[in-house]
């Protein structure tokens, strides 16, 4: 009896043990890597990567810096030669400041990707490359730099058609070697870029890829850059015979605002890339200084394919646009002198200027625009888009070495404002703010060169 009792106690205790539940699995990480902001560039970023900079015997690069509070600044330009220390310059700003830094004053060795670090923000960086600026310039190319380092980048808007030279720059500012895969799509579907699979980008260096050599006669080339190891910051450079346009990698979004689409004389188009698996309906609203056309164009972008949408015929004069998509897409605006017919073929005999820029995913209350007014002999203009339904008073706070008084502009609902800036006013940037969300950009023009440069939103 006692044996049975002991056995029963042991078995019952054992069964009780078996019935006890396993503890819940440990918490799993709630992130997959460094946070990637949708904008790829917000003024809260502390490091700005500018892949397309260059300075040599004919070209000058300009780092346009703007900061709204005291901060230390350090510019680093890695050397392509392994184990050679990068070129660095450090300085400090005591308050709201904007300043153009001529890359040629630091190095003159051709391509010179750089990154700029701020110890406090908001701060922002744009980068512009010029050629023969003193003599009136035949080339102006630039855009805002990136402060985000996602593992996946989208670069729409490339082309290898006749008369255009597209170059991909992959900048790896980090010590770790990066391994990236570049895939492409065109109006014909997927593009075979075998040479760009598992591409090694050495740490603290960069790689320049001549896309025309790999895939020729592609009208619309959209690239996707995936970092399998490490991180890179890409940019696209599209060159015509006399001018260049460059824009950074971007992300995906269902809304993109472009405050500047057409500079006088340029014929704009929007290139939309749909990396998804389903068709995307894209609706374009256009905003001019005097008019607004909602749903001015509605197109369907097939999956896995980019589409170049001409928008020059939608409205007269300078204008901006808002693009709304049924699923996330990437988009850039490209404006060229060459007019294209319905079949996309070039017509006419224009100067062949080219500009391009990325859009703003989210309108913001504050924008930093480093650079307007910086380039001697070049004409700059601010572009502000109010896609909202209310009139807003926009404050334009000039930034320079000295303290400057702000201007105010009243902007009607669903309109753009184009403010042409005077030259030689010691103004090297602007902080644009409004009580309602707006988006802002700026343009620079000199001789045969023109550039569209996106503003950098200040997240509140």
């Amino acid at each position, binding site marked *: 009896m006692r044996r049975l009792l*002991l056995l029963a106690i042991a078995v019952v205790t054992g069964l009780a043990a078996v019935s006890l539940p396993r503890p819940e699995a440990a918490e799993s990480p709630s992130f997959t890597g460094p946070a990637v902001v949708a904008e790829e560039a917000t003024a809260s970023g502390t490091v700005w990567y500018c892949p397309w900079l260059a300075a040599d015997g004919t070209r000058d690069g300009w780092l346009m810096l703007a900061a709204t509070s005291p901060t230390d600044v350090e510019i680093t330009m890695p050397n392509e030669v392994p184990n050679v220390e990068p070129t660095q310059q450090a300085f400090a700003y005591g308050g709201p400041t904007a300043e153009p830094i001529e890359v040629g004053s630091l190095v003159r060795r051709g391509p010179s990707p750089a990154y700029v670090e701020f110890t406090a923000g908001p701060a922002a960086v744009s980068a512009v490359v010029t050629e023969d600026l003193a003599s009136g310039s035949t080339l102006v190319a630039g855009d805002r730099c990136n402060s985000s380092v996602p593992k996946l980048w989208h670069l729409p808007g490339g082309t290898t058609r006749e008369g255009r030279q597209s170059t991909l720059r992959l900048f790896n500012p980090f*010590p770790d070697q990066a391994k990236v895969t570049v895939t492409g799509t065109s109006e014909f579907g997927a593009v075979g870029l075998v040479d760009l699979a598992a591409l090694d980008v050495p740490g603290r260096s960069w790689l320049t890829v001549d896309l025309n050599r790999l895939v020729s006669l592609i009208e619309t080339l959209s690239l996707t850059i995936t970092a399998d190891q490490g991180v890179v910051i890409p940019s696209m450079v599209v060159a015509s015979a006399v001018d260049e346009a460059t824009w950074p990698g971007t992300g995906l979004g269902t809304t993109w605002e472009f405050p500047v689409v057409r500079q006088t004389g340029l014929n704009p188009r929007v290139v939309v890339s749909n990396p998804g698996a389903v068709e995307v309906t894209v609706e374009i609203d256009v905003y001019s200084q005097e008019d607004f056309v909602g749903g001015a164009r509605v197109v369907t972008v097939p999956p896995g394919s980019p589409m170049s949408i001409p928008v020059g015929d939608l409205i007269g004069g300078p204008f901006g646009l808002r693009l709304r998509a049924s699923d996330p897409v990437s988009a850039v605006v490209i404006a060229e002198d060459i007019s294209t017919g319905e079949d996309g073929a070039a017509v006419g005999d224009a100067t062949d200027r080219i500009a391009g820029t990325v859009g703003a995913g989210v309108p913001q209350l504050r924008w930093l625009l480093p650079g307007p007014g910086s380039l001697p002999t070049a004409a700059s203009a601010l572009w502000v888009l109010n896609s909202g339904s209310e009139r807003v008073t926009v404050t334009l706070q000039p930034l320079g070495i000295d303290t400057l008084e702000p201007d105010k502009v009243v902007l009607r609902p669903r309109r753009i404002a184009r403010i042409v800036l005077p030259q030689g006013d010691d103004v090297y940037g602007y902080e644009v703010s409004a009580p309602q969300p707006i988006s802002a950009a700026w343009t620079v023009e000199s001789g045969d060169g023109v550039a569209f440069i996106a503003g950098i939103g200040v997240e509140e």
Partner: protein
Amino acid sequence: MPATLSAVSRQAYGAARIVMVGGDREGRKAADGAGTEWMSSVGALLSSLDPAITHVWIVHGGAEPRPDALEALLVEAEREDVAAGIAGSKLLYLDHPDRLVSVGVATDVFGAPYTGIDDGEVDHGQYDVVRDVAAVGGASMLVRRDLLRGLRGPDPLLPPTAASIDLCQRARLRGARVVVVPSSEVLVPEVVGSDWREDAGEIRAMVKVYSPLTLGWVLPIRFLVGLLEAVAAPFLGRWTLWGWLKAWGWNLTRLPSTLRARAAARTNRVAGDEELFRFQLRGSTDLRRLGSDTGAALRERLPGDDRLSLTEIGRELRQPAFVVGAAAVGFVAVATRTLWNGFPAVGYSLPLPPSGLDLAGAYAGGWNPGGFGSTEPLEPFAALAGMAQTIMFGSPRLAAGVLIGGAFLAGIWGAVRLLRTWGVNAVSGTMAGLALMAGPAGRAIAEGTGLGTMVALGILPWALRIPLSRAPRHRSGWIGRVAAAGWVSGLLALAAPALLLVPVAALSGLALITPREPGPWRAAGVSGLGALLALPILLPWVAVTDLRSYLSAGDAFWDPGWLLVVAALAALVCALVAAPARLSQIAGWGGVIAAVGVLVARTAEIGPGRHVELAGTAVTALGTTIVCGVALEVITQVRLVTGWRRVVAGIGVVGAMALVTSAVLVFLPGRAGLPNDRLSEALRFTAAADGKPALSRVLLIGPPDTLPGESRLVDGAAYRVLSAPSPALWEVGLPESAAVDEALTDTLEDLIAGESFRGGEALAPFGIRWVIFTGDSPFQAVFASQLDLVPLQGLRSPTYASDAEGARRIRPGTGWQVDGTGFARAAPGTGRVFIADTANSRWGTEWEAVSWGNEVSAAAIVGFEPIQIRRTLGIVALVFFVGLLGTSIWGRRFR
């Protein structure tokens, strides 16, 4: 004395004079009573002797020579071929005249006597031959008068045995022969033991006769042998320390007299030390006795009735108990072979720090260096390991091997002793011991890197066995028993505090199962008292630790291999069914213990944590051991277990053997079941880094089960910091999060948020110089996008080195070295230094909290000033432990 005088006067060969020497007034009174001449000293006697007297026969009071004793001595000593200066008699017990006391005496080089006679050895005439000996028994020695005069008689300061050895040695230096004459028989009363005076006399005798060269080595060795005996003898129930001290002290105070006597002894000598060596034994008789006693003590603890003796050794060696015991020792040697290189760096196991005293000091009020450090007490195992390391000459490797190897041996041996309580034979007990230490539960503890619990597992059976031992007859014996239970429970608790109450609970369970037997009740009581006495041994930890946090840290959920659970269940059921009633109850008791252990080890849902799981698993191991032992024993009981019961018992044996043979999983890798070292290799490169890598930290990132010890989470990703290049055991735990931890968390969150891309610079203030990934983590993408963290190629784990300056725990300044838990350098600097540890005002003079860290004056030594009350409590605990140990040794005399 009258009997002695009577026996002397009855000698066939009549003496010229019979004189009673010494004894002061009482001696004189006795001599007067017997009508015998009395003289105060041998010297006085010698000067009074007629020159016609050729020999002096010295007989001790109490001795009773046979009537022909003197004649035999004289005849043999005067033989031409003998011509002895000193002749001694064969000594027999007065109470047992057929049993030998001595037939001459050999000595070792240290002057210690050795008779070569076994206790109670009967005289069959086996030693009856006249021969040269080192010395003769002092009870009866015939000395030539001229020789005795030249030697100035026996040394009056020496006790009898030492005096006779001394006299014989001095005689040899004068060229005289010393022989034993067995035909001369003298009966002597039994003398029990010897006191320190004999030891002192042996030392004095050595000093008197040896050359300076010989003294140069025999004296130090004699000193060390005595010390060794003093250390080891308590384990054999003897206490020789005070005697050893007294003997040397006595000689020190009498050194002038000894030197004078030496001068006299060595004057006119005709022989050297080699003449003395001729009749001496090799080695040390004290050591030989110690070894013999140890062997006997060991043999006593093994089952069987026969004690170790020369005649039995051969037979015993062929017994299964010895074969299995030897196999178990071999098993332990192989199964723990890699641990003699130190503890592996994996899980909750890290190598011991360079100094055991530092480790013990960190436990007792020192700085807890886990993470960024704290004043939270280290686990008590740190004290145990630190003391073990100190005893092992400070060697971390030796201490690791001794702790785990010793635990394995102690566990197996303890299982044998515990199971012997119920008559389980040594073979079954040894097998069960293997199941205890290397069975499924033991392996689970090792796989969970519960170093302390592994050691505790070796102590656990003793914590049950000691209270269960046969009841002492005397109160003193009881005191010793309770003290033994106290210090064993204390050791158990030091190794694994959660196991403290297990013995008393298990014994109470046994008492409930066998309510009519007084033994288990008594044992439960002794065990309970032992547990109470163990509490002070846990000081200061028990006084300052948060027991709730300690017991709830982690998750208690052991998932045993269910195949082996079936095997254990089979062994239990079969033992319950087939075993005789008493053994069946013990098997049932073991089964209940094992089941309760499993239950406890899976209670994560209601709060208990890792320590409870380990304790529960250890309890399961204990229960399984008892079941295994009984299941294996049952089959050996051929007369009691017959018929179908025997078949059932066979099935039980299969189940038990499945558990035992699973120990091979421990045997082959040689790590006592501990996992392979994962961290040392990953950290090794840091040792070769520039500067002083030991001043920097490593940030380890990976899944929690790949990180050593405890870890923290940031956004669900696990990480922890350790010191480079080889973190030590005291870093396993992490204290409560402090400001420095929150600062590090904020920094990591900034990196995750993409708000900072200079990770090296951000981590440098924390002293973090390297980032190592122990497994997949989303942090890898974060650190791959840092501008100043350089990936190191050629390493197994993804590793980044910081480009940033000043990633050191102490800065600025050069020449700093890690010194225990603090820092030191050759010369004090000027100004102030920052210490990147948790802010605490005990870090040094003119301390100031700077951010989350410490800023102090740059002295030559910058360290944490111990918390004195805890240090005192630690010392009290140690003294209390030693006191209990001493009391238990003292109490063993009264078993």
